[in-house]
């Protein structure tokens, strides 16, 4: 009996060892295998999480051979998903830094592994910020059950909560924004219960009541000044309507909007009349990396906008900003004139080196996430102001909210290319010569299952240099307190 058990155990151990045994490809055939996400020939940073992917099609016996200059890794697929071990992956990345990883998917034919046409991933030495933050939200219109603001480690794909609305009666939380990609400067808004702007700066949290008598609404779209003292916000009166038969299901528009700047040290709001024009809607502020310019979008107010929403076109402008005295210049400089081109600008973001501004261009309006024609464009900020469509990273579906990494070599942006509705974050490399490369989707474990089962959109992705300094409990404690009312200068 004991002998039989011993034999059985040996067989089990041997079988188990077969599973982990390193395989090798006996021959390679010229055959393309489709994978999800499409990571073929992408450019990746040297500190990214395992680029797991799945073979599309019927479930089969697949293996993946990853070759770095001096290391090779063999991974077997489970239900067509290749989940690459974290430690071994980072060793490969370190080995291939500045070079390439060659990936060969092999299929089993009797006792042989037959390789298919290999593809590569270029590993650049420019690292990516340690974290991204985003809101996860069902892409609905009126109701939701749960939403929250989360952070994800880009080197492990591990997600953790910054704040979830399950503790504040399913209220709306939005616009989590990071100042200069620093985890010590963040903010977000809560609507409904415990409403306010939660400002988390240099180890302290403050809950702000941001509606004043002379502003349209509470603070909406934020942008940190690089020195961390000032934050520009738009204030908007927004509405939505639904299409009866259109690829873009919904229209969101502003009846009116202005831009103000909040001084975090003096707790006061100030503005320029040029950013609060009665016949214009100003929105989506952003500062230049040197802090000397405030970029924004502006459109003349359109009468009966709920019917004439397609006539709304936002131009890209900028105004000088003096951080020393907290004031504005007297001239508005128009960089992209929407009246002349008939298209509309949203979400301008200046690169950290100040060379270009990247923005979303769509046929009309400003809520580009619901416009399938929305694409990313760049404009040089030299004298030429050369406009360029970013063909390398755009798709036939929506590209929208984007932000830069600290070193200016990476950009994360939202796209609906995956299924047309659920927004996913993509990362694109931008080299020193100003060239863009094929983007890749946020890596996850068993991605084909993960993304198919995730009924939430990634909203407002932003880079962050470390994990959030505050726990949800810290935020909840502040939520219990009275909010601090902002004053008007």
């Amino acid at each position, binding site marked *: 009996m004991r002998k039989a058990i011993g034999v059985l155990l040996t067989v089990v151990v041997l079988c188990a060892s077969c599973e982990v045994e390193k395989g090798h490809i006996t021959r390679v055939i010229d055959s393309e295998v489709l994978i999800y996400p499409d990571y073929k020939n992408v450019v990746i940073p040297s500190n990214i999480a395992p680029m797991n992917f799945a073979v599309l099609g019927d479930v089969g016996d697949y293996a993946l051979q990853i070759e770095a200059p001096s290391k090779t890794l063999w991974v077997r697929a489970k239900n067509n998903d290749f989940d690459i071990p974290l430690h071994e992956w980072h060793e490969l990345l370190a080995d291939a830094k500045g070079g390439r990883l060659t990936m060969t998917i092999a299929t089993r034919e009797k006792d042989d592994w037959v390789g298919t046409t290999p593809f590569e991933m270029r590993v650049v030495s420019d690292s990516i910020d340690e974290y991204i933050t985003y809101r996860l939200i*069902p892409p*609905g*219109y*009126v*109701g*939701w*059950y*749960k939403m929250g603001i989360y952070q994800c480690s880009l080197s492990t794909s591990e997600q953790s*909560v910054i704040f*979830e609305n399950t*503790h*504040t*009666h*399913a209220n709306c939380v939005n616009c989590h924004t990071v100042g200069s990609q620093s985890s010590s400067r963040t903010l977000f808004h809560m609507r409904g*219960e*415990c409403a306010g702007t939660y400002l988390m700066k240099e180890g302290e949290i403050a809950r702000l009541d941001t509606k004043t008598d002379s502003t349209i609404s509470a603070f909406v779209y934020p942008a940190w000044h690089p020195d961390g003292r000032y934050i520009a916000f738009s204030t908007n009166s927004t509405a939505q*309507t*639904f*299409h*009866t*038969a*259109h*690829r873009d*299901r919904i*229209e969101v528009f502003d009846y009116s909007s202005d831009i103000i700047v909040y001084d975090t040290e003096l707790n006061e709001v100030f503005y320029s009349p040029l950013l609060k024009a009665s016949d214009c809607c100003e929105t989506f502020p952003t500062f230049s990396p040197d802090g000397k310019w405030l970029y924004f979008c502006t459109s003349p107010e359109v009468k009966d906008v*709920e*019917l004439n*929403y397609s006539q709304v076109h936002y131009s890209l402008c900028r105004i000088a900003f003096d951080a020393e005295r907290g004031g504005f210049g007297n001239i508005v400089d128009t960089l992209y004139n929407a009246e002349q081109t008939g298209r509309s600008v949203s979400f301008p973001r200046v690169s950290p080196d100040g060379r270009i501004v990247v923005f979303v261009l769509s046929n009309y309006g400003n809520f580009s996430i619901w416009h399938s024609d929305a694409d990313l464009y760049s404009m040089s900020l030299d004298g030429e102001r050369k406009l360029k469509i970013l063909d390398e990273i755009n798709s036939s579906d929506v590209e929208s909210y984007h932000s830069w990494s600290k070193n200016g070599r990476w950009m994360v942006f939202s796209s609906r290319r*995956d*299924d*047309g*509705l*659920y927004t996913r974050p993509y990362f694109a490399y931008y080299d020193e010569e100003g060239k863009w490369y094929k983007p890749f989707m946020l890596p996850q474990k068993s991605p084909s*299952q993960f993304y*198919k*089962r995730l*009924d939430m959109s990634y909203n407002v992705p932003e880079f962050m240099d470390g994990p959030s300094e505050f726990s*949800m*409990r810290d935020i*909840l404690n502040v*939520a*219990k307190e009275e909010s601090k009312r902002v004053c008007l200068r």
Partner: protein
Amino acid sequence: MTRHSSHKKQYGLIDFLKSWQLTIGTVILFVFVQICQRYILFDMEQTRVFVYEADKIAAQLSSVGGVSDFIALWLQQFFAISYVAPLVVALLYGGLTWLLQRVCSMVVERDLLLVEMIISWLPAVFLFVYTEDKIFFLTGHIAMLISVLGLWCYATCLSGRLRPLRLILIPLLFLVEGFVSSTCVWVMVLGMMLIAICRKEWREVGTIVLSSLLMLFLAQRYCIAVGAEELFSPDIFTIRIGGDATMIWVWLSSLLLIAIVILNVLKDRVRDTTISVVLAFSIVLLTGCFSYKSHKIEETHESLWLQRQIDTGNVVEAFKYCERHINNLYIANIYSYLLSTIGRLGDSNIFEEEEQLIIGSSESIIVRRHLMTLNYYIGYVAGAQREAFELNEPTEGMMRPRALMILAKTNIIQGNYALADKYLSHLKNTLFYRSWAQSYSRFLWDDKAVEADEELGSRRKAIEIESIPERWTAMKYLVSQIAAASPTLPATQYVDAYANMGAYDK
């Protein structure tokens, strides 16, 4: 003969009732639930379907209250079959009461039925005070069952040779109860204290108080650690048990109370009877105070009944029902739908106002559900999709089966196959909707198959209409556009009905 007589004497009517009260109560509960609650139970199945996905199950089990939620959801999937829902509820409460009686019999040495009732009422009163009456989930029932099971374990330990084991059992129960439901931790504490008080074991009461404080503290820390802390009260104090549990509990306990009153009268125990009657009145009063039988709920019942009739293809019965009750716009909405299915909408002069044919969108779940069905039926694909989306999104887990079915179908019609595949893949992981999802998978990335299909093809033609912001267009114009684009769709009948009312300008 003598033996037979003594046997007969031993099992008289009172003893018979006493022995069989639980079975009789369970059967009556089944009938009661089948008649009065089945649409609410049907709504449970419609609210959230159990999905066999490992990551979803793991996430569910690891959350506070996740165990009872998991069991409840698993059971709820069978509510798709008629009679299963009332049977599950009746058996659950039958088992619950039986367990409670076992606990009482272990604690009270003499025949103290009144004490038994007070104990059995404890959770009900507790629920009355704190529950939200608008929640209808089975989770509370399961959590309560596990609570009583815990009390039974405790009473067993306390009564027998296993007594020292209670020192391990108490923290263990707290741990299990914490996972089952935070509410049940409180029920457990009160129940255990009552058991100890009944046995006049005062040191034991002290032990429970101290243990419970320690365990509650630890449970609270756990809640904080897993991010399950509520804002203004820690999660451990939060009530998660549904209103229907309260109702059924009250109903069953009332039955038992009436039985006790009768038994006491027969036994000439006047004092006990008086107390029982006073208790019964208090309970009735409480029931009245917290009952959810409001006008809105009546409408919910009515709508759910109609919805189920339509779903099961029993349109004629629903139609007859409607003929008697066109008392609100929701019902009128369904009525127009029913008339249309039998081809009588166009020649009907019942509707006087345009709004009676199709009412506008609303944030109400009931209206959304009807509009989703109606919009899809007439061929307004974008409207059906929006209502399905808005119906599904605010629901925990976002797994309303019929909403997912409409989302899958409308996305197939629109050619959004990747999206349709996503919704179908959810349904493929369920027990009762798997075959439906598999049958619709054949349309994915196959335009010809979609166009050849009568249901989907006719609606695909209907999306080729001029898009107008919905807020600024009347339904009468929208249906006329749909009817013109795809004349075989029921929208044509609506056009006729609008025309009969003189809704269109000449």
